[in-house]
């Protein structure tokens, strides 16, 4: 217990899928404490399935998965892992305030016989402040814009102060100013030692925050390394294809991101 494992996420030959059918296979991945990993890849490649695997939300079909030094199935305290889902259903068929949604992020840190009281307001309001929505705490979430609703979900993930934060396209539909605010939030969290796995199509929004890139294509990891190396990887792919704008002169090797980034 004295030595805290620096390996926060460890996948060895892991496969994840749904109803027994694998979607991502042969995944080897090791994420160290404090690392910020961006997961890139085309639509349908299996990014969501992979990160859901880290939360026990997609089926773990084979291989090893451990999170925070514990095999996933035996990880009891799930508040240590925060989650921002890609698809958002905020409140189901009824209305609720922003604060009510954020407070749900604290529930499993309390025993079931103790409902959240006033003391829970402080961390919830702090989390909303972090994403720049403190003044909307008592608004009906339905009256917020799509980008603001994404930020509510980020606040919900932050409120229990997780050690690992898994975010599935947190900046989708968020305007540029708010993306910068969020990038700042992620940078501060990273500096404070929070490990992050972020699925994104907008790497440019997270420039300077991401330490490492993992690319998923057709259910396999096709790249795992530094952002600089990823630019080279892309250029090589383009060269191998023998056509396209990233010609052998290497003019585009410094863009370092997929076409969707601009």
């Amino acid at each position, binding site marked *: 217990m004295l030595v805290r494992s620096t390996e926060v996420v460890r996948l060895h030959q892991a496969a994840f899928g749904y109803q027994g059918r694998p979607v991502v296979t042969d995944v080897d991945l090791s994420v160290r404490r404090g690392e910020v990993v961006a997961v890139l890849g085309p639509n349908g490649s299996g990014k969501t399935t992979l990160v859901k695997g880290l*939360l*026990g*939300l997609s089926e773990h079909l084979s291989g090893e998965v451990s999170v925070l030094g514990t095999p996933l199935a035996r990880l*009891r*305290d*799930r*508040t240590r*892992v925060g*989650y921002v*889902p890609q698809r958002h*259903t*905020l*409140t*189901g*068929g*009824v*209305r*609720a*305030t922003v*604060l*009510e*949604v954020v*407070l*749900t*992020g604290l*529930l*499993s840190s309390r025993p*079931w*016989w103790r*409902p*959240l*009281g*006033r003391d*829970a*307001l402080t961390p919830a309001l702090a989390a909303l*402040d972090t994403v*720049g*929505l*403190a*003044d*909307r*705490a*008592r*608004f*009906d979430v*339905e*009256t*917020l*814009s799509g980008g603001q609703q994404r930020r509510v979900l980020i606040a*919900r993930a932050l409120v*229990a102060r997780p050690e690992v934060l898994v975010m599935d396209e947190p900046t989708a539909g968020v*305007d540029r*100013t*708010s993306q910068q*605010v969020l990038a700042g939030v992620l940078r501060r969290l990273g500096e404070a030692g929070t490990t992050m796995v972020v699925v994104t199509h907008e790497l440019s929004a997270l420039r300077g925050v991401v330490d490492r890139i993992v690319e998923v294509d057709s259910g396999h990891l096709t790249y795992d390394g530094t952002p600089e190396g990823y630019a080279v990887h892309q250029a090589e792919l383009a060269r191998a294809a023998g056509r396209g704008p990233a010609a052998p002169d290497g003019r585009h090797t410094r863009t370092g991101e997929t076409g969707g980034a601009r």
Partner: protein
Amino acid sequence: MSEMLSLEFMRTALLAALCVGLVAPMVGIFLVQRRLSLVGDGIGHVALAGVAVGVATQNSPVWSALVAAVLASVLIELVRARGRTSGDLALALMFYGGIAAGVVIINRADGAQTGTLTGFLFGSITTTSREELALFAALSVVIAGVVLLLRQRFFAVAGDEEYARASGLPVLALNIVLGVLTAVTVVVAMRVIGLLLISALMVIPNAAAQQLSGSFRAAGRWAVGFGVLASVGGVMASYQLDTAAGGTVVLLAIAVFVAAALAGSLRRALARRRHRHAERHLHEHGPDCGHAAVPHGDHVDYLHDGHRHAAHEGHYDEHADEAHVQPEPEEANR
């Protein structure tokens, strides 16, 4: 009024109505949230088979209905948890099977029992015995207690089941507890409004409350108020007007819904008229936007170019004067 209260059976009836009016919307709000508003109906169908078994074996139909309803609700959750598309059909089979078996068993037991059947389908509140009332009251206390204890968890699971699972909440267990609460509520309400109309008292007061409040906590309180109003008011009215109690309760609930919907749109229209929108903004005010932020009641105003602006439902309000709308005055620490 005093004449009504001097009658033993009316006192019993009103107390039973009070129990149902309190409890049905408390459980129903989570069914509405899960978009399973009609599940109460299905459980009511299956409860009828339980009633029939009780009648046929000359035992208390309340207990056998309770057993059937609880079994059905647990089965529903297990089917839903498997997440198969055939789940919907499985539920349909169970619901229709329940009501069909109920009819067949009752008629088989004694041809003269159709009156009993009608009583359970449409309610027969004035035949409620003191023993039954005591049982209903005890069950209602248990339902209310469990909901008050677990409502935040029910809210989380019903609102976003996947997130609830990721955050470590015992999703299946909570859904099963909610299912059992639904089943018990169905049985408690069976006498007052009947198995065919039970769902109405779980759903309609909540539909009305949704017209008036944007906070889950506040909407829950409104719904309980509306539920009591409809059930107690409906039973009283049915005595005065000599109408069927169950139907009267539900018609009154619908009237309450219409009134709430009108009040809600009137309030929104007044609010629109009373406050002034600021000009369109190119940026979103926030802690880091560079404009001076001044707390103003329960929200924050931002000062720039001689204006005071406060965020409101996707636009900014001009808060130079005091005439403005409060977002949600309700305390949200549920």
